[in-house]
């Protein structure tokens, strides 16, 4: 059995989870634009695609903070 994760990092874990959730929900209010287009894709589309790809990195970091891997 692995030891229980340290509880002191609770705030950091909550923040790491909240950032992608916010970016993908209310965050769209800030980026609801076509320009600047990146590789031809509208900015709003790029924003969401970028956060889909970044979310795994945030979750992986939470696992690191919890000393799971």
């Amino acid at each position: 059995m692995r030891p229980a994760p340290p509880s002191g990092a609770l705030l950091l874990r909550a923040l790491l989870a909240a950032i992608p959730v916010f970016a993908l929900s209310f965050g769209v209010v800030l980026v609801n634009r076509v320009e600047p287009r990146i590789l031809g894709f509208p900015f709003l589309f790029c924003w969401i695609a970028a956060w889909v790809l970044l979310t795994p990195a945030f979750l992986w970091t939470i696992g690191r903070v919890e000393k799971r891997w």
Partner: protein
Amino acid sequence: MNGLAALTIVAIIVFGTIGFALIGVRRVKMNPEQYIVGGRSFGTIFLWVLQAGEIYTTFTFLGIAGFAYSQGAPALYVVSYGTIAYVIAYFLAPAVWKVGKENNLLTNADFFETRYKSRALGVGVAVLSFAMIVPYVTIQLSGLQILLRIAGYGAYDATAAVAVGFLVMASFVFTTGLRGTAWASVVKDILVLAAVLFAGIVIPVHFFGSPRALFDHVLALHPHMLTLPRGRAFHGTLWFASTVLLSALGFYVGPQTFNSVYSARSGDALRRNAIFLPFYQILASLMIFAGLSAMLINPGLTGPAVDQSFLLVVQRYFPPWVLGLVAGAGALAALVPASALLLAGASVITKNVAGDAFGLATSDRSRTLLTRIVVVVVALLALGIWMIAQKTVVELLLLYYNGITQFFPGVVAAFVWKRATAWGAGLGILAGVAVAVPLAALNVTPLGLNAGFIGLLANVVVLVAVSLATRRAPMSS
């Protein structure tokens, strides 16, 4: 002739997948734990394949393309909410798995029964889950029918083919259980990946030269389609944010999701799984490109027909074998999730209603046998409802979409609020369903808020109030 060629390819794909999965599960000794939750042995990769297999249905793909076809950027909400759902899953799924492992749980109703120490609550959750699963299976049949009709170039009424395909799938689940669904998901995920890459990349490049040119065309013709309407407007930014958050809550509490969560080998397998699942959402964004392309190539579809938009483009501009491969992938996207749903529906009836409430079939052997029989009964029931009432099925689905989210507060409270009681959780779910389903059926959206959201508010208020007024059952098992 074209229709025959395409439909033959669909049939080869469906039967080939079943054959492949039967080879995958040979020599597994069946008991209820093996049959319903795969012996709690699935590692990260197999789990990823299974969950992607059962989450992404025909309607995910046709629906996203259709939404993009008619609305444009608001279709991005599917990409957003799925990703948020996996953030929730990272925390919730391992916690649910742990309770399941420690108490040998098989169903979502078992979870409620164990955490709230109430058999009555378990039976109630089982009955409600069953009532939601049957229409959800039925809608997969409607999806299959659309696919087969288009693959047959409109020359055949696909009803008989739908019935045959579905009953073959039901007998497959009868034989193999959840492990078979997971093996079938391997083929389904690969074929759907190919179909989506074709739809989202090959079609735009073939017709417009590049994704950039696709967006240039859309901007020139429909300048407002690539952004959301502002603020509180219909499908606006506030709609987007609230719908994304609400849908993410409902994403992981379906009865079939509990089975796949229990099937994990460890909590960390589920955590890694939550990390990898967002990548699947990239496929959903490709379907938006397919929908936008279809809008430029073949404009003018309205109403439910928009869901067929990209298939009609394939049918009109590509050879029959391409249509056959795409429709075959789509048929698996209907049948594989349906097999997981049949199993979840049968397991709550066998374990929680027949077993726990009436004391029937409690030995391992008789429980496996009864689950198998109920799989076939549920399949026949869903098929019967679909044949009698194809139109009202869509309305029944409101029960699923708005009802399923109502399980969320009870699941979360089981972990974070010691004071929550069985009465609170049970009446909360009932209040949520009683508020959300009629509002959704009448298409009422008070203050611009989603009906499911209002139901959730009612649910939480009742859960808290009733829990404070009742006493938690003393510890016992």
